[in-house]
């Protein structure tokens, strides 16, 4: 998800003259013309260094978000209250791991390795979406994440299907299809709770109360505080501003909340006839920046779990590499044809 975390991560990005060092005017002109004509930039095409760096940062942070985002939901797999819900949740978390894999592959087309990116995640040099630093405290949180968090992600990501970088755009087409499915399932979960027992209804309302504002923060800082937005929009990586997307999301959610029989925790939320949009209350940007800086409720826990899984798995990866060296096969950490087939594979020619 392209949240403000992307814009704060990295820091090595340089704009302007440095981008064109070593590039001929012809290369730059060809790139500019391709972007202007809404053509796709492909891995072998020349591209400005700043464009490459921005994409690496954004795609990596997107991939990291999928991987870290497995944790808050996996927190409820072993406690899912019915076998049907358990199966749905497991399938969803499996999809997220798959999305992480597509996105790391897309990033790798830009000349970085998954290992490098994971190292940066583990050392805190690259970020993931701030939303995953909030805890899942009840079963209803699984529904709220599906409805609101996946809903915000889709609002952010659908325009990325037209992003100027081909591999990223194609990955997003595939990811958005699956995300839409997850979002409907989350909505349906909340609907069931909302119309269930009084305890279930209260559980659903409490979850929405806790996830509403953090979901609005997923669109990143307000436009006047968003550092990289203008350049990303000029490069057609980004198609709409943070505030535009946030407004679109609010407009979609209000009637959905009504249909659910749940309220949104914002006393200022009301229809503005003149604007043709819902007005909504102020976002707590202090909280947002605190979470981005690592001081959210679960930052420490999320990163520690990720690091621990990686460290505790080192001997397994080493074994696979040693076996591959002895037997001349690919290491097991490289996707095999069998595994691809087993997880549904790529049948639509959209893989990054």
């Amino acid at each position, binding site marked *: 998800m392209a949240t403000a975390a992307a814009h704060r991560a990295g820091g090595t990005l340089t704009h302007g003259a440095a981008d064109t060092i070593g590039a001929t005017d012809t290369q730059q002109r060809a790139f500019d013309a391709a972007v202007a004509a809404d053509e796709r930039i492909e891995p072998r095409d020349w591209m400005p260094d700043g464009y490459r760096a921005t994409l690496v940062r954004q795609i990596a942070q997107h991939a990291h978000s999928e991987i870290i985002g497995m944790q808050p939901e996996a927190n409820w797999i072993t406690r899912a209250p019915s076998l049907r819900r358990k*199966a749905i949740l497991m399938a969803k978390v499996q999809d997220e791991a798959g999305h992480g894999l597509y996105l790391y592959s897309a990033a790798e087309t830009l000349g970085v390795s998954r290992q490098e990116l994971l190292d940066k995640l583990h050392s805190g040099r690259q970020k993931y979406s701030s939303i995953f630093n909030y805890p899942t405290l009840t079963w209803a949180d699984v529904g709220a994440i599906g409805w609101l968090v996946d809903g915000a992600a889709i609002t952010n990501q659908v325009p990325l299907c037209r992003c100027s970088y081909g591999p990223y755009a194609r990955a997003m087409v595939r990811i958005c299809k699956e995300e839409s499915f997850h979002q409907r399932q989350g909505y349906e979960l909340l609907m069931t709770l909302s119309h269930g027992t009084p305890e279930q209804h209260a559980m659903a309302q409490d979850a929405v109360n806790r996830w509403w504002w953090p979901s609005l923060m997923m669109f990143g800082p307000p436009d006047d505080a968003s550092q990289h937005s203008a350049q990303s929009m000029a490069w057609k990586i980004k198609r709409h501003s943070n505030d535009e997307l946030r407004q679109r999301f609010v407009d979609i959610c209000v009637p959905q909340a009504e249909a659910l029989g749940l309220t949104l925790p914002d006393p200022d939320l009301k229809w503005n006839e003149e604007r043709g949009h819902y007005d909504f209350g102020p976002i707590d940007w202090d909280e947002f920046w605190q979470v981005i800086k690592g001081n959210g409720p679960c930052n420490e826990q999320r990163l520690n779990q990720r690091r621990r899984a990686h460290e505790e*798995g080192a001997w397994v990866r*080493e074994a696979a590499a040693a076996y591959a060296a002895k037997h001349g096969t690919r290491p097991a950490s490289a996707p095999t044809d069998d595994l691809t087939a087993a997880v549904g594979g790529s049948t639509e020619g959209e893989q990054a």
Partner: protein
Amino acid sequence: MTATVPTTAALALGDDALVLSHRLAEWTGHAPVLEEEVALVNIALDLLGQARFLLSMVGDEDELAYLRQERAFTNLQLVEQPNGDFAHTIARQLYFSAYQHLLYGQLAEGDGPFAPLAGKAVHEVAYHRDHAEQWTLRLGDGTEVSHERMQRACEALWRYTGEMFQPVEGLDVDWAALEAAWLDTVGDVLRRATLTLPEGPRRGAWSAGAGRQGLHTEPFGRMLAEMQHLHRSHPGASW
């Protein structure tokens, strides 16, 4: 399907799949590589699908999964064993998937009530077995550390393997042939993985009756407490 549902057998097979699925799902977010996040939960999902089908042959799947006490579950003790390290999980999977593959292969060839399920599931299980086999080879014949861990895991779980071949009422299976084929299969994989087939007993006083009779190991109760807690906290609710 025959007129009477072979309840004992459906519960035994369904509980095996349900419990192992749960254990595998505990790996989510903790796997050594991303591909294994996908693979382990993929296997867990297959097993959960089998469990739902089998439990539904007997009654309401959720009632059976969430409202039975520990003593009423008839899964093998093998599948309830905690995940341990990755080698433990792989050894458990190798032992069980080799068994399930052979068992479902036999059931699929018959015309009993489990033939339709077994015919479909045997393909999933073939993948599970291959996955476990490939990792057994990599860990056994990888580094010194991985070899030692894999050997230890194979030995630690060996004692739970005899139970798989105790006849289950309602399953028309040649158990002796199944056991012989299983020993061949597992022995062959371990040999290729440069591992030694464990020599300890595979059934004994510790397993008297064992899981199929509702006698479980200590970690199982705690697993059920976690699995059933939410469902039991809201009696009669739908989800």
